[in-house]
């Protein structure tokens, strides 16, 4: 069933979409790089623990590192090759962290080794275990371990399973292509998700700029599944879990709470497709769909890229402009600037957006806040970013948290996007949140 809805969340912004460059381009397999650089922490939680040794030959799909406890996921070999080095690798933010350098066998057929399949008939616990064993994390960018998210806490129940196909970040078309090309995987994934959540109904939320994907999925809903496809108006940040729940269910997730508090669980559509694709074969994640785009890219497109492929290899292959200036991992609203091209594609990389010198936003001049109110009218959770910004400048972090709900800010960037004074509000809030968290834990340890 396909339904159109005009419901949405409050406020939000409409950045230019720029999706037309890649949304018609089918996903293509990316070549294997000669060297894979695989950080052990590509997810929220503890880094995976390496279980191979230097010099060992590994097959594509083989587990290279195991999960370190519950809030962690394992890592699988993206290619068949030889473990060259177990050492620190560059990660986002300019730091280094534990990882594996894996040299690809040049002439290997790159068949994938499979593990024990997790059938649909398995128990919910076994399926959750299967999801963890497959190394699955939120592929929308958050990279939170999916099995943790799917675990319904004691005393709570899930009524609505929400499949997030919103993809509200400008430029990105990853989820769009997955919906058009992997309908079967998505519905298989939904079957697994229904087993573990016991939800009564499933809503696939899609924005109106992907109507083709909505039609495509709506036409293929299996008769025995309680699935609705709902098309909602285009607005950023509708892909944020809480905003999507409000748009689809008309309910607000309580401050500091989780979707399950309103009896909902939300899963990204590409993550759902991965569950449906991997679990029946007992495989782990070894590649993902990435949109490579932006004004600085010659061969824009959606590519299936092995995890751990270095950015330099990616950009050489798609032809980036020589004057490239900034490279974002993720979309331009919430993505992170890559500090250099030695970073590699990780599980949470939904897109690589490349801007040349002339595309970079003019941030040269920062004016004082003129209290225009644009940020107030943009904030999806009705904070007062203007006030928060002024408080941040005077380092009144406690006031920010206690009186102005700083900790509810999820750094969507809508406020900075509209600010005529170019004030780096989100940057302030990120720093302020970090300090407040530190103070809290310091108090907790006294």
């Amino acid at each position, binding site marked *: 069933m396909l339904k159109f809805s005009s419901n949405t969340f409050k406020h939000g912004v409409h*950045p230019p979409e720029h999706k037309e460059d890649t949304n018609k381009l089918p996903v293509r397999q990316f070549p294997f790089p000669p060297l894979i650089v695989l950080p052990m922490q590509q997810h929220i939680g503890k880094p995976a623990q390496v279980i191979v040794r230097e010099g060992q030959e590994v097959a594509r799909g083989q587990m290279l590192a195991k999960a370190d406890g519950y809030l962690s996921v394992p890592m699988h070999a993206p290619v068949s090759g030889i473990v060259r080095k177990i050492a620190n690798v560059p990660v986002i933010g300019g730091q280094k962290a534990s990882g594996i350098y894996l040299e690809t066998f040049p002439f290997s057929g790159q068949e994938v080794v499979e593990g024990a399949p997790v059938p649909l008939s398995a128990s919910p616990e076994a399926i959750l275990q299967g999801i963890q064993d497959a190394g699955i994390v939120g592929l929308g960018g958050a990279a939170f371990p999916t099995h943790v998210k799917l675990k319904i806490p004691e005393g709570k129940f899930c009524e609505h399973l929400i499949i997030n196909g919103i993809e509200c970040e400008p430029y990105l078309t990853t989820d769009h292509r997955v919906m058009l090309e992997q309908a079967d995987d998505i519905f298989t994934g939904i079957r697994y998700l229904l087993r573990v959540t016991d939800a009564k109904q499933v809503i696939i939320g899609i924005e109106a700029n992907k109507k083709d994907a909505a039609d495509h999925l709506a036409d293929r809903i299996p008769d025995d599944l309680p699935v609705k496809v709902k098309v909602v108006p285009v607005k950023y940040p509708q892909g944020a879990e809480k905003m999507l729940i409000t748009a689809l269910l008309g309910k607000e997730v*309580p401050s500091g709470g989780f979707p399950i508090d309103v009896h909902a669980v939300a899963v990204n559509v590409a993550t759902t497709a991965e569950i449906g694709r991997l679990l029946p074969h007992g495989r782990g994640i070894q590649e993902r769909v990435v949109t490579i785009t932006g004004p600085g890219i010659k061969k824009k497109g959606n590519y299936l890229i092995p995890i751990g492929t270095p950015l330099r290899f990616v950009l050489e292959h798609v032809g980036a402009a020589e004057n490239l200036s900034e490279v974002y991992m993720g979309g*331009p609203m919430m993505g992170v600037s*890559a500090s250099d091209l030695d970073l590699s594609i990780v599980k949470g990389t939904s897109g690589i957006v490349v801007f040349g010198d002339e595309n970079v936003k003019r941030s040269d001049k920062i*004016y004082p806040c003129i209290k225009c109110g644009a940020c107030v009218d943009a904030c999806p*959770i*009705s904070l007062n970013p203007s*006030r928060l910004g002024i408080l941040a400048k005077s380092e009144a972090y406690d006031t920010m948290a206690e009186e102005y709900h700083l900790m509810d800010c999820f750094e969507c960037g809508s406020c900075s996007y*509209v*600010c005529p004074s170019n004030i780096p509000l989100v940057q302030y809030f990120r720093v302020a949140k970090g300090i407040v968290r530190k103070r809290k834990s310091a108090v907790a340890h006294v």
Partner: protein
Amino acid sequence: MFSKTLRISSSPHINKGVGVDVIMRNVVYALLPVAAFAVYAFGINALLVILTSLIACVLTEHLLNKFSNRPSTIADGSAVITGLLLGLTLPPIFPLWMTFIGGVLAIALGKFVFGGLGYNAFNPALVGRAILQAAFPVAITTWHPAFLADRFTRVSESVLTFPFAKPVVDGISGATPLSAFKFDQVTTESADLALGLVSGSIGETSSVLIALGGLYLIARKMMNWRIPVAILGSVYVLSGILYWINPEIYPSPEFMLFSGGLMLGAVFMATDMVGSPITSLGVVIYGIFIGLLVVVIRIWGGLPEGVMYAILLGNALSPHIDRLIRPRVYGT
């Protein structure tokens, strides 16, 4: 390949591209027709007053920044707006030296002492105007008829008065519609008022051009439409009720809307972002507050015109409105 180091920036990596300077520039565009019509109506005297005010504001802004070793802020355009607005609130034959002082004080006391753009509690042009009103009560209420035949050739002696000399009261001075009503119970045709065919301060005259300027800014999303709508709406409703109670002693609501500085104030001064509240509900309250004050001051106060004080009081109230009116945060 790609040896160049990458630039790093914090997200979001794109912005809407409508900067403060762009907004200010558009406000100037919206004000230019108003100023042009004023010059057409009042001639060379009005032009001199507007230019003097403009020069005084921009120069003061520049020099104050220079002496306090701050980067120049002229380019943001806010001093130009203050200069234009101040000029437009003055009588067409206001002495230039007084105008100049008004411009200097508008920037120095209305803006700079608060910390510059964004920190000023009050609309700087109105601060300048209020000081002038207190210092030169006679000159600032000396009006002048519009559309005099020799307005493009004759510079009024009053305009050229030597600083601190006794102001020359120009031979020909005309009552404004508001003072005519207030003190002589004469009402002027609303249509004449709306089109600007009457006497008044330089920029008060053409409500139509002011409204068009406002519509332009609203269409470009550079002005909060709720402010003029709330002010004009509350003036219309309250004066309508009074007129309905007793049309003999109270002016018609149309007269109230189109006379005096109400249009200019509601569209271009009360909407100054810095001095108005930040939330949608807040600006509506602010607008209604100003509108009611305008009616009260005009009808019961000792002054024919209350817009300036009403807006200044609104400016003073707006931080308190912001403290009280806080939208409910999502999920709380």
